[in-house]
């Protein structure tokens, strides 16, 4: 579905990505794990069209991906950004409607709105509230719901568990699985490697702008180097 070949990205004089190649198949959850500053967000921002690659190409469903954010959304990729970036000055409902900005079929939009409310009943309760008054967890749900409203097939998620209480982190990962069961494909960037590996099918490990290892999650989770660097301990349980 998504195919990235030899992607190089520089900004602010820093070479943030140095030849990334990866692939995401339809229906998969693929995770990219790595430390702060490894280039995870840079990769997502490049796919979304905010950063221009200096070399390499991104193919989506067999054709070259557009390089402007709104056109990327139009081609079916949506991005739940780091820090959620919900529109605090608008109501919950307006936030969700903006997700459907490019869609003109009102009936289908209403149906999807109902689906999002079924998935996140809390958002339905707070429909008319200003999004800025939501709690951190609710804001993350709104950001995910808003992305679902775009009708994209591939969802890029940037650190969805960041800053959330452990119980909410668990909920967020359950929601990610539910979203996959709705027929979506997910590219998940996470610092919480333990949780990410538990939910994903395959993983790429990113270090200083390069992919150092990749494979099915079982293999990655069993890799001693990965365990030492990202799972924190021999038992691999401390990051949960």
């Amino acid at each position, binding site marked *: 579905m998504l195919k990235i070949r030899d992607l190089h990205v520089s900004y602010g004089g820093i070479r943030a990505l140095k030849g990334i190649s990866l692939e995401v198949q339809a229906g998969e959850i693929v995770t990219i794990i790595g430390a702060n500053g490894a280039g995870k967000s840079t990769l997502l921002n490049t796919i*979304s*069209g*905010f950063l221009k690659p200096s070399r390499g190409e991104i193919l989506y469903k067999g054709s070259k991906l557009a390089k*402007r*954010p*709104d056109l990327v*959304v*139009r081609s079916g990729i*949506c*991005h739940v*950004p780091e*820090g959620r*970036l*919900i*529109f*605090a*000055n*608008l109501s919950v409902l*307006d936030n969700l*409607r*903006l*997700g459907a*900005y*490019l869609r003109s079929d009102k009936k289908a939009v209403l149906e999807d709105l109902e689906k999002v409310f079924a998935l996140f009943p809390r958002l339905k309760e707070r429909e008319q509230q*200003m999004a*800025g008054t*939501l*709690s*951190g967890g609710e*804001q993350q749900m709104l950001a995910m719901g*808003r992305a679902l409203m*775009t009708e994209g097939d591939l969802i890029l998620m940037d650190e969805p568990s960041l*800053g959330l209480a452990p119980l909410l982190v668990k909920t967020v990962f359950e929601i990610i699985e539910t979203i996959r069961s709705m027929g979506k494909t997910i590219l998940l960037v996470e610092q919480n490697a333990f949780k990410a590996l538990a939910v994903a099918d395959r993983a790429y490990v990113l270090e200083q702008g390069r992919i150092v290892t990749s494979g099915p999650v079982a293999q990655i989770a069993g890799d001693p180097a990965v365990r030492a660097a990202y799972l924190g301990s021999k038992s691999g349980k401390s990051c949960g």
Partner: protein
Amino acid sequence: MIQFLQQLINGLSIGSVYALMAVGYSLVYSIMSFSNFAHGGVIMLGAYFGFFALTLLKLPFIPAFILACAGTTLLAILVERIAYKPLRERNAPFLYFIISAMGASILLENIVIATIGPTFRTYPPVIPRTPIQLGALAVGRLDLIMFFISAVCLTGLILFIEKTKMGKAIQAAAYNIKACALMGVNTDKIILIVFGLGGFLAGVAGVFFGMKYTVYPQIGNITTKSFIAAVFGGLGSLPGAVLGSVLLGTIETLVAGYLSSQFRDLIAFVILIGVLIFRPSGIMGKTTVDKA
């Protein structure tokens, strides 16, 4: 009492024209977080466009008015494309935008001085000068028209922003332009529309200012006051800009009427400094904070 009402009406009328200008500052600020000082130049050219449409082209008032507004809409968009778009594409720091805005403002003023000349020009008497008697009150026809048209334009603008899909996208872009792009909104188009709207209202304001006072290349300096009004009301907030403008216009006319017109601008700046000290975000400025 009669004198007070009279001053109040004058104040509201001038305040509504400040509001037309102030929303232009506020719209651009809300999306791009810098003060578009070239806006004054666009208003000044609006006054000239209207003046020449009436005198050179000998158009009737309404077509001349529309032509002036179309001219400033295009001009505002042109300023964005030339002075700001190249900076946006390079993700330049906001200071560069302000410098570019000042440059554009000086450029517009000097183009006019060099081509049209620095002389003061007076609009032909399109609107009769005789006031309308409302009981003991004498209301200027121009004041009445200014107030009415401004109110219609501002209501239209607020309805557009609050009720339409595009308006919601503008509000979303004001909150976070990156997130807005992630919704599939072409943010470049949003910026274009915002400058176009500001430019259109600048044309309305420019023609009214030209008619009320005179037309000269430094007329844009008056717009400093509408900028003050925008800050006063809360830069980036449209209702704030309108409220700030009406308050400023009213206070100004009352000061001019009861104290002395010499004090008028002094009071305007004292208010600005006062607001900046005690309430830096203005009456209705953005105060929402992101939650972690």
